[in-house]
């Protein structure tokens, strides 16, 4: 049987989602010790007796992490527990120094919240409410690198390298309730939810929220049930989803995989799956059929977390503008049409455009560059615009150069290519590539006369009042001047030359 198409899947099956997002907080020190948390330090240089779990070492809670978690809970419309506890999640793995993870179990610090997201549907913009079951604190594990072996996993590896710099970094886990009723929009709703979370977290300044560095990670639970059924299907949990685009792809892929199994009368296995960035498919991981017993119990080394109600209210008062309101404000301030606004959100360029505008660029110009040429290059390379080697400062500089008449739009596109190719800042690329607008009317006139002589017949048509024919001549002049002329000036001079000025 052939793989069903997505349309076939959603015609028959109704997806149910569940999303678990892990956020690394950007506190200066780790969750339970004073080690630094900076990303990218040499392996095992940010460790101490506590995060290496040396005998006798004890954890002490980072107050800042609690504050950040409460802020997240408040921003997600959660209730904040007046009393919650840390629990130990016991399991053996070499990258977890204590062989238990300090987490929260049945007493999370924040619970019962929601996030509203809006997506574009065939029937126009539509809002979905994602209910948040809980927000809790835990510590990150170390990083393992399994060397040798075919799979890159611990089984079959020749040896493994361990870096405990990440061990003990504060993590916040945001767990949704099951999300039913998204139908064929499930992948887009999930993506919009993660994007909204990311924007909220960025606004709170509690995390770097860089998916590519792992400071925001999403596990997507997907199951299918026949349309109209109340019985939930078996779910799979896809890990390693490291970009917004991957959230969408992973869910779509899992829906198709589940439907194929179900269509053939097979069962979906309850298991962990790993998303493969290159193929867009998932690979089977640990089977969860025999659920692991983590033997949770309250951590006796830590006191319960009992935030004062007054403190919670103080924190609530500091909450920043909600991303949805911000979008509304930006739309009005920049006077952006609906479609363009949605395009910016879909392309995930709002932040970068705003950064460019804050550097002095005209909002429309900034938007056009990021959404147009730069997004096109990113799509070609199959990466996010933020991963390209071009910054808001570069684009602001580019817009200024065009405004000053030193570049034409066409020339500016070459400069963008140069910047992305690593040739330097826009001014450097202009200098290196020898790009300049031909402003010398004399040179332009020489080219115009040459072209009109070569294409006398066309020139005659223009002279006779048939203006559309001028395009071919202008194109030829531009070619003659190697694209360095300002097309508008060429047109002006050409029409003047042919008595149409």
């Amino acid at each position, binding site marked *: 049987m052939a793989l069903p198409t997505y349309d076939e899947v959603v015609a028959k099956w109704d997806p149910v989602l569940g999303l678990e997002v892990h956020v690394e907080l950007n506190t200066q020190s780790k969750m339970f010790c004073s080690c630094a948390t900076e990303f990218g330090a040499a392996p095992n240089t940010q460790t101490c*007796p506590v995060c*290496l*779990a*040396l*005998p*006798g*070492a*004890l*954890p*002490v*809670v980072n107050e800042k992490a609690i504050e950040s978690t409460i802020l997240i809970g408040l921003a997600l419309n959660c209730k904040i527990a007046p009393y919650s506890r840390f629990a*130990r999640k*016991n399991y*053996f793995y*070499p990258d977890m*120094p*204590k*062989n*238990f993870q300090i987490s929260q179990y049945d007493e999370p610090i924040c619970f019962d919240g929601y996030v509203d997201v809006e997506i574009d549907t065939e029937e126009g913009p539509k809002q979905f409410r994602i209910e948040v079951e809980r927000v809790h604190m835990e510590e990150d594990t170390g990083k393992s690198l399994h060397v040798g072996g075919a799979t890159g996993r*611990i*089984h079959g590896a020749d040896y*493994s390298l*361990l870096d405990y710099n990440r061990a003990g970094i504060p993590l916040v886990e945001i767990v949704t309730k099951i999300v039913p009723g998204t139908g064929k929009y499930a992948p887009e709703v999930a993506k919009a939810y993660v994007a909204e979370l990311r924007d909220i977290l960025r606004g709170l300044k509690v995390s770097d929220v860089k998916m590519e560095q792992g400071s925001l990670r999403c596990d997507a639970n997907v199951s299918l049930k026949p349309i109209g059924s109340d019985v939930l299907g078996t779910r799979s949990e896809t890990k390693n989803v490291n970009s917004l685009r991957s959230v969408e792809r992973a869910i779509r892929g899992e829906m198709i995989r589940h439907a194929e199994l179900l269509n053939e009368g097979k069962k979906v296995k309850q298991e962990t799956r790993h998303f493969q960035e290159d193929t867009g498919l998932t690979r089977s991981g640990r089977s969860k059929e025999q659920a692991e*017993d983590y*033997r*949770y*119990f309250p951590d*006796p*080394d*830590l*006191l319960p977390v009992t935030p004062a109600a007054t403190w919670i209210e103080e924190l609530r008062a500091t909450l920043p503008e909600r991303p949805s309101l911000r979008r509304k404000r930006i739309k009005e301030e920049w006077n952006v049409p609906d479609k363009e606004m949605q395009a910016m959100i879909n392309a995930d360029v709002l932040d970068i455009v705003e950064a460019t505008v804050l550097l002095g660029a005209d909002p429309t110009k900034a938007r056009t560059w990021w959404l147009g040429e730069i997004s096109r290059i990113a799509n070609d390379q199959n990466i996010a615009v933020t991963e390209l080697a071009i910054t808001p400062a570069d684009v602001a500089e580019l817009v200024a150069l065009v405004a000053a008449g030193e570049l034409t739009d066409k020339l500016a596109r070459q400069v963008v290519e140069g910047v992305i190719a690593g040739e330097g800042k826009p001014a450097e690329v202009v200098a290196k590539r020898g790009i300049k607008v031909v402003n010398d009317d004399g040179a332009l006139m020489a080219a115009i006369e040459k072209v009109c002589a070569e294409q006398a017949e066309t020139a005659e048509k223009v002279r006779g009042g048939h203006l559309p024919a001028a395009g071919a001549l202008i194109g030829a002049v531009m070619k003659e001047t190697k694209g360095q002329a300002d097309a508008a000036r060429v047109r002006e001079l050409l029409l003047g030359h042919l008595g149409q000025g």
Partner: protein
Amino acid sequence: MIRQSATQMAEALADGSTTSVELTKAHLAQIAAVDGQVKAFLHVDADGALAQASAVDAKRKSGEKLSPLAGIPLALKDVLAQRGVPTTAGSKILQGWLPPYDSTVVTKLKSAGLVILGKTNMDEFAMGSSTENSGYGPTFNPWDLTRTPGGSSGGSAAAVSAFEAPLAVGSDTGGSIRQPAALTGIVGVRPTYGAVSRFGLIAYSSSLDQAGPFGRTVLDTALLHEVMAGHDPKDATSINAPVPAVVAAAKSGDVKGMKIGVIKQLQGAGYQKGVQARFDESLQVLASLGAEIVEVDCPNFEYALAAYYLIAPSECSSNLARFDAMRYGVRTGDSDGASAEAVMSATRDAGFGREVKRRIILGTYALSSGYYDAYYGSAQKIRTLIIEDYAKAFTQADVLVSPTAPTTAYKIGEKVDDPMAMYLGDVATIPVNLAGICGMSLPAGLAEEDNLPVGFQIMAPAMQDQRLYQAGAALEAALLTKWGAPILSKAPVLAGGK
């Protein structure tokens, strides 16, 4: 010189009649002479001790103001991390580990100028009541070398009792300071939970563990208590409050008008005849000093042992998970092709002793899904009931008392194959740990039938540790008058020792 109390030694140091180096050398000589018989020490740090002693002497010479115990030697239970000194918690799995950091207790000892002679033997990871569970062989009771000194801090207690050190540090999770103090005829105190930092104390059961002092007198013990205690931001369960005035209480030693509650459930049947007799005698002494003796009822103590043997193993099953051969300690089975899991498993199998494995398995079971409520959950409820029993009893009495242990020291090997019999020895000490309060054991004389020391236990509410010392000092003084000489003078002098 080594038979003096720490207080007397401190006076001799202060008046210049001796030096810390002399004192340290005298104790190192005693260790060299008798520790082959007692085996109190796992590691003797002669160089480190002499260096610390001469540093203190130099400070004293230069006129620097020193703390009361500066220059006094001390034995440290091997459960506390000391930078650069082998620390094993009595386990083979940590053989050769050199901690890169000092526990907070060690930091405090060092800054008070105490001289750490070495690390003392203990039941592996403090699990046991006889020191026979040490991965390095048992410690022998200086009163009778065929008997155990109790445990788990048996090495520390034996060292003080054998005059190898005037003071020692132990840890008490279910009676591991008080019971060996009782069995070796010395004073031992388990402070209020949270009074002494657990940072650097290798965890057995986090909610029950507490380090505390040993001495040959109540005052010596108070002086060491004062050095060890105090708030520590590195331990989240550390109490942020002033240390109770234990030294002043030990000096005043007055029980006039004090209400002393005898716990009905902790006497009578199951207690050795000579133990009960000495306990009753001490009660009479206290009454004659003007204390009011009342009986209190703690009905839930019956379940204390059962609760303890669920909570402590549960916590230990998690606390000991870190010993996996990945980052420190011994590694076994790391041959070609062995997986990390296989190496962890082989190391833990070879490195842990039987009692440790028994408790890890018990605790793993008690915490597992489907059994949690019945075992760990119920045990926590009993814990609450015991706290309530104490709270009620402390409305009727200022301190509570009982024999420390049901028997005097038993023969090495006698209970090794009968864990239940061994566990029953902790019946009187465990309630204190479950409730997080404080307790002291001090010598009450010798049992008639075997001429071995009997311990008298005093208990006080949390952060009222001074009451232990106040009552203990009064009883100690009255008994000393009665006996004419300290109890340890009745112990046999060990071959070659002083």
